[in-house]
Every structure is written in structure tokens, then in C-alpha cells.
């Protein structure tokens, strides 16, 4: 087993490489990387629920939506958040996401497993419904165009500067979430995922733990929304539609749930396939669907689980003869 320090070193090295390589590529790649990073914050927030608490949410896009719509509405209707007050918008976005999660959590946390999946889907659709039809506020189907990015000492209209800003937010979020899941609180979340009943018996208020985790995830979702709004330059109901939530879930599982960085890898792969491969071949969706199907069938612990899979395979190879006999008998 690779030690924890080594793992951290690898992640830090990979991030450093990302920060150095990306700005030296062409600007389309910078744009894609920026998008993938902004979205990765949402995927990681979902991973706190999915990987560490055992709650699979199908409505995570709602929090991205709140952050993004807040940013867009403040910027276009009130010219707010385009200077140093951008930092206030960041705070508002986080609080907005957290507040929405605090409301939704009251409804959702009672359920578990598939029912949790369904209720978060329903709540996500509520947000979509409002974004889609509440024309006077959200612009409905047209969405809201953000015509400029904030300027405060630095000009975020520059793609490289903006990439670094998103990168910084991403790195800080990763660190914060890492600290969170390693904290005693995070450990009890994992405990709840594994053995909820036992944690209850041990005197933990499991509902409260889950509720707080849900709110924290919402807050990070809101943050990713603020960044997303300025990354994409347009906010529309497309950002809160069911498939966006599904995407986030798939990215987390693709990379490996319960690893945080797995979600980041998933985000990069899916953005790469969807927005880069789609410019090369028209059948990219087969690749995307195929990647999902194969990952789920063969790599339940995601790409991050590959080393583990290989080690298990080595261990199991001695039992293989017995296995294949059993197979033959079954077919």
C-alpha cells in the first residue's frame, strides 16, 4: 500500500504540473481545463455525500445553479460583483448554496439509499422548474449572458489569469474538503456510511452529521456555481437540468467515489470526451456511454481503484483455477 504522504505528494505534483502545463497550451485547452476545474469542485462536494457519507444525490446541480444564477443576476441587474465586490459574491454564492442545502436537507436527509436518490432528484427538478419558467428573474430558456468578468487589480477577462483564479479556488476547496474528511467529523461520516445503526447506538446524532455534511456540500456547490457562471459566460436552465446532476454523479464514480481527487479525474475525462472528442468524431457519445458502462461493470471503485484491483488480482490468481471451473459449471 502506498503511504498517505506519498499519495499527497503525487496529488500535489499532479496539480503543480497542471498549473504549469495548462497555461502554456492553446487557449481552448485552457478554457476546457478551467471548466473542468470549476465543475470538479461540484463533483468533489458530491463526493463528500456519496463517497464519505453514503448518500447518492441526483440533484447536486441545484447548488451549482444557485451560485451561478446569483452571480449572473447580481452582475447583470445590479452591476454587483464585477470589482472587488466579487469576493462578496463568492461569499454569497457559498452561503446561498449552503442555505438551499439547509432547506432541502430538512426534506431529504430522512430518506436513505434509493429514496434519497429520488427525493434529491425531485428537489433538483424544483430548482430547474424555477430556472426554466420564472422568466422575470432567470430569463427562462434564454438564460443570462454575463458580458464581463470581474476586474480587481487583476483582469479576469484574461483566460490565463482566470484559469489561475479558478485553480486557486479549486486547490483551496480540495484542501478544505481533504481536511474535512480526515477530521473526526469526517471519520464519523465514514462510520455512518459503513454502519449507521451502530453509530446511532454509540450515541452519535447521525441525522445531524448527515445534515451538516449536506450543507457543507451545498456550500461548495454554490462556490462552483459562482466560478462556473464566469467561466461559461452564460447561465441557463441547462446548468440545473437532471443530466447535469447525473454527470456530476458519474464523474465521481468514474474517478472513484470516496477519494475526492477521483472526481477531479472524472471531471477532466468527461469534459475531455464531451467537449474535445466531440470536435473530432461525431460518435463520441458511444465512447462516453461505453466508458460509463465499462467503469461500472469492471471498476466499481473507479479509476482510482485500479491499483487496488490489480493487487487483488495478483492475490486471487492462485484461486483462479477454482474460479474458472465454477464458471464452466455455471454455463
Amino acid at each position, binding site marked *: 500500500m502506498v503511504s498517505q504522504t506519498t499519495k499527497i505528494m503525487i496529488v500535489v505534483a499532479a496539480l503543480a*504540473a497542471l498549473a504549469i502545463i495548462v497555461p502554456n497550451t492553446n487557449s481552448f485547452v485552457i478554457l476546457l*481545463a478551467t471548466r473542468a476545474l470549476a465543475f470538479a469542485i461540484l463533483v468533489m462536494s458530491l463526493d463528500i455525500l456519496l463517497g464519505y457519507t453514503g448518500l447518492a444525490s441526483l440533484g447536486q446541480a441545484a447548488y451549482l445553479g444557485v451560485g451561478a444564477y446569483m452571480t449572473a443576476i447580481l452582475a447583470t441587474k445590479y452591476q454587483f460583483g464585477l470589482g472587488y465586490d466579487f469576493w462578496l459574491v463568492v461569499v454569497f454564492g457559498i452561503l446561498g448554496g449552503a442555505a438551499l442545502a439547509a432547506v432541502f436537507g430538512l426534506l431529504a436527509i430522512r430518506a436513505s439509499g434509493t429514496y434519497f436518490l429520488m427525493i434529491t432528484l425531485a428537489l433538483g427538478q424544483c430548482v430547474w422548474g424555477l430556472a426554466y419558467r420564472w422568466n422575470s428573474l432567470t430569463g427562462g*430558456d434564454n438564460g443570462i449572458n454575463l458580458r464581463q468578468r470581474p476586474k480587481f487589480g487583476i483582469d479576469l477577462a484574461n483566460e490565463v489569469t482566470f484559469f489561475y483564479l479558478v485553480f486557486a479556488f479549486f486547490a483551496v476547496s480540495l484542501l478544505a474538503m481533504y481536511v474535512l474528511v480526515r477530521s473526526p467529523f469526517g471519520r464519523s461520516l465514514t462510520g455512518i456510511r459503513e454502519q449507521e445503526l451502530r453509530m446511532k447506538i454509540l450515541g452519535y446524532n447521525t441525522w445531524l452529521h448527515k445534515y451538516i455534511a449536506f450543507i457543507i456540500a451545498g456550500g461548495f456547490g454554490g462556490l462552483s456555481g459562482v466560478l462556473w457562471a464566469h467561466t461559461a459566460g452564460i447561465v441557463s436552465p441547462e446548468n440545473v437540468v437532471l443530466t447535469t446532476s447525473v454527470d456530476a454523479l458519474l464523474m465521481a464514480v468514474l474517478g472513484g467515489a470516496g477519494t475526492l*481527487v477521483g472526481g477531479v479525474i472524472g471531471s477532466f475525462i468527461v469534459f475531455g470526451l464531451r467537449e474535445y472528442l466531440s*470536435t473530432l468524431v461525431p460518435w463520441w457519445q458511444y465512447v462516453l456511454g461505453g466508458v460509463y458502462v465499462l467503469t461500472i461493470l469492471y471498476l466499481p471503485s473507479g479509476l*482510482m481503484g485500479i491499483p487496488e484491483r490489480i493487487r487483488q488480482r495478483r492475490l486471487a490468481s492462485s484461486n483462479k483455477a477454482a474460479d474458472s471451473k465454477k464458471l464452466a459449471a455455471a454455463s
Partner: protein
Amino acid sequence: MTGNLLRRLKTVLLGGALAVGATATSAQQQEELRIGFLAPTTGIFAQIGKDMVDGFQMYLDEVKGDFGGVKVRLIVEDEQGKPDTAVTKVRKLILQDKVHMFVGGLLASTGYALAPESTSNKTVYVVSVAAADDLTQRDLPKYPYLIRTSWTSSQPHHPFGQWACEQGYKKIVAIGADYAFGYEVVGGFQRGFEACGGQIVQKIWPPLGTKDFGPYIPTIKADADAIFSLMVGPMALQFPKQLAAAGNKKPVLGGGTSYDEFVLPAMGDEVIGHVSPLQYSAALDTPKNAAFVKAYRTKYGKVPSYYSESNYTSAQMIHEVMKANKGKFPGPEAFVKQLNALKVDTIRGPVVIDEMRNPVQNIYIKKVEKKKMFGYEKDELWNTVIKTYPNVNQFGQFKKDEFLATPVYDRNYPPCKHC
């Protein structure tokens, strides 16, 4: 254990590898004219996207991909009918493919999202479909590299409102797709209609992409003389059918895209007699159009829609400019200027582009009829031209300065005074 390390590193660095590959391709720039083309080739508007690409491609094929001595490289990107996808794709075209210009964009909202990209990247945007009014009206100064070869949403509907008055209609109910294009079409019709004494007595806004009009049709006011509808994509097919099934007896008028040929062949006989305006009709009885319709139909198996014609003509206009420059791209400013000065005889009729960079062209009032045309054997639905308003500009019967002083048409503008 190093094996595991490498593997992890490799996965993380995959993005980087991708990036290096990308830089390599963009380095190869030859003497060619690179045109980025944005059309929805998947999703709900895929059919329209195909018409757009086919129209442009047909012209390219006719001139063998050669614009005045330079080879054209057409790079088609799928914008999926979503403004934010369009923005990503256009950046790919500009930043990676280094296109000289980009063409297309379907929805009005997509047009509004794409225009700022042309400004910030100093790349020509030839708006061949997206009809968003303000691109060539109040917002024009913001977009120096934008020029339109199609129409503004309200352009055909100003004279159409006038025409509706002449038919003796007094009260009309408007039902239109709930997004920028719908507002501008209905707004244009309302201004034209109310300027000559008509009254819009109700406005209904079903969301873009509505298929079940069950909830909306019964709310149509009974005392109206006629219904004005603006439908886009699959909506156009369902609305007349459901309206007829609900027992409607009122005359039906349609906005430009409601009875366009992209959907007309799939329609039933209930649409016979419905009237709509546009700058093109496949049934336009000119030798030029007859040849175009036949060639297009032979090649793609269907009658061209306005989306086909508009992109065919856009290709023609770009060709004209490139011809004058002997195949050398003159730079974005000069290109826009020269395209603006062009006077072309197109399939749809004579076209010049006004000082606000929007075409001045004929507007045809078209009535759906079932008949034989151009020597085809079967009885089919055609948009017969019943009246032509020649050389209509984007302000129609109104004065430019007064027009520009009023806000852009919106959900609530012009206000519904008679609702």
C-alpha cells in the same frame, strides 16, 4: 509500487497530454480560408442543423470548395441548440482552429451569446440564421465584427401586421415560443398590426419545446378574429394539429418559422390556408429558385427550407467578397466592410445590406396550398407567395430613429394594452 505511481500520474497527466496534441494541430496553418460553422447537429433541433450545413455545403460543392482561388476549409461544430455549448464551440473554432470567420448559430439566444465572442476575439461573425433583433440594432456598436445575411426576427412581421389589418382582422390572439425570438416576432407583428388600428387581445407564452398544447389552446380568447402563432422546431408540427383537433375555426397566421419548409412536408392538411411571412419560400416562382429547389432536392432528398437557402446565400456572399480580394482574406474590418457594400442577386431575390449590417430584402406573404410545383408529380404542401413587399429593411414602415429609441421587443414590450 512504482508501477502504481506511474499509473496514477499518467491518469492525472492525461489532460496535459491532450493539450500538447492540440497545440501541435493548431500549429499547422496553411493558405486556406477557414470557416467555422455552428449548427445544432444533435438534439431537438438536429434537423434544422442539417439543413443549415447542407445549404452551405451545397454552395461549396458547386464551386468545388474554391473561393476566388483559395481553398475553403469548413469546420462544422455541433452547438446542440444551447447557447453555452455554442460559446464553448466557438472558442474552440477561434482559439484552436484559428478560423477567419464563423457562421451560423440557430437560436436568437445563441446569437446573443456568440456576438460578444466575435468582438473579444476580433473574429468575423456572419450571422446566417440567428435573427436576434438587437444584434443589428441597439447593440450593433458593441459588435464591430458582426454582419448579418439573414433577417431580424421582427423584419417580416412589421409588414405582416399591416397585411393582417388589410384582411380586416380587428382582434388577434398571439401565442409564441417563450424566448427571445418569440418575443421579437410577436412584438414585430404587434407593432405592425396595432399601428394600423388592430388589437392584440392576448399573449400566450408556451415554453420553447412544448409539444402538448393541451393546457394553452383552451385559454385562447373566444372573441378574437384570428390567431397568430410563432412556433419553432418540433412545436411547429404539433400546434396546428392540436389546434384543429380542439375545434378551432379561426383563421391562423404564423410567424416566419411556423410553416417553413423544414417542417411543412411533415404537416397534415389542417394547415392549408394558413398564412405566414418570410424572406424566402421554396415555392418562390423564379427560374433561379426552381433550379435551386430541384438541385437541392436531388442532392438531399428534401425541399430546401429557409435555413438551407440562408446558408447557401451566406456562402455565396462570402464567395463574392473573397473573389473581389482574389482569394486573400482582407482582415476582419475590411471583410465586414466589403460584405456590407455587396449587392447580390440571390435565390430569395435582390439583397443589399443596410448601414446597420442587416439585409434589405423582399418579404413574401405566403399561404399554405396543396398543389403540384416545379414539375413534381405529387400534390404537396407549398408556401405559395400571395403578396410581395419589396425591399423591406429591419425597421419596416417605421422610422429608424424612433424605432431605435424604443426598447427591444420583449415579453412585455410592446405592452399588451388590450389584454
